């Protein structure tokens, strides 16, 4: 026991907690508890990323996974039921089959994975080492991640920003910022046209409650 490095013990402890949380998420029926546990899952992964020295990734995971997505899932949950309906065992067999096959494939692939921190792995050799060397000479920033993200891979990051913009735009087009989707009014060719929601607002209100 004494010859196991403390970081490895931390990693194993965090992985064990991830496993427990994942099983709890699968077993639970209360959607509120599931959303909260998903936040816990993200936070545990963030802690694990820190222990793997991937601080930037951990930061993003903590902010997006544990923060924003929990809030958005809660917002989505408010629009639906609070409890998940149990699914019949026969309907779960297909998913179990797919999950088992995928899991076996992943375990099979472990043998080909480079060791943690391997300097000769594909991620660390080739462009990776070039970027680290070029950052020191051409960009002169202490944080290589920022240099790669914003300068060497500026195109990719531009693409990511546009993706986020499109996600926001899509949501706005579908739902609207004020939740007034379907409550619009327009007058093409002089005739009065209203969204479906507005014309039968009473029945809609009845459906909601």
């Amino acid at each position: 026991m004494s010859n196991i490095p403390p970081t490895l013990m931390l990693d194993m402890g965090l992985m064990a907690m991830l496993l427990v949380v994942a099983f709890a998420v699968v077993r639970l029926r209360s959607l509120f508890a599931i959303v909260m546990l998903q936040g816990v899952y993200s936070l545990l992964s963030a802690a694990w990323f820190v222990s793997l020295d991937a601080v930037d990734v951990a930061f993003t995971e903590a902010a997006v996974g544990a923060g924003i997505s929990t809030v958005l899932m809660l917002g989505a949950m408010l629009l639906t039921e609070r409890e998940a309906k149990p699914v019949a065992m026969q309907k779960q067999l297909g998913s179990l089959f797919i999950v088992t096959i995928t899991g076996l494939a992943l375990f099979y692939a472990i043998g080909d994975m480079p060791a943690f921190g391997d300097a000769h792995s594909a991620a660390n050799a080739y462009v990776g080492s070039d970027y680290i060397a070029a950052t020191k000479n051409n960009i002169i920033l202490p944080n290589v991640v920022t240099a790669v993200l914003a300068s060497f891979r500026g195109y990719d990051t531009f693409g990511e920003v546009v993706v986020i913009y499109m996600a926001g735009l899509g949501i706005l087009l579908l739902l609207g910022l004020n939740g007034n989707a379907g409550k619009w009014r327009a007058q093409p060719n002089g005739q009065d046209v209203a969204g479906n929601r507005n014309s039968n607002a009473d029945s809609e209100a009845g459906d909601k409650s």
Partner: protein
Amino acid sequence: MSPHVILRVVSKLLIPLIALFALYVQFHGDFGPGGGFQAGVIFASSIILYALIFGLDEAKRAVPPSWVRIGMTLGVLIYGGTGVATWMLGGEFLNYTYFAPQSTHAAGQHWGIFAVELGVLCTVTSAMVAIFYAFGSRAPELTDEDW
């Protein structure tokens, strides 16, 4: 008076600190972990916390939906505009060196990264708040039972 006095008092204390931390993450991203994406999400979460505690209408008075709409587009324009500016200065798209070609300590790169990260901050913050506004406006008000 709302029953969530402790939540209100604590979050009033925390919201400015969260926003300040977002700015730290934004402008310290060159030296430590962080950058536009993380800062944007943290900044948005401070606005979302405000909306959760004080209600969506109050949040919409503090951060109007029109700002959100403009901010989303502005961020992409800042990012793309930085690329176009380097074009105009004679370089390739997003080749920041042309902002200060004579600099010996890569000042052009630093300015370029600063501008680009500002664009990322704008878009990410606005998009996150927009998605929250869109979902939050449809959801019924939280009852005490849900707390």
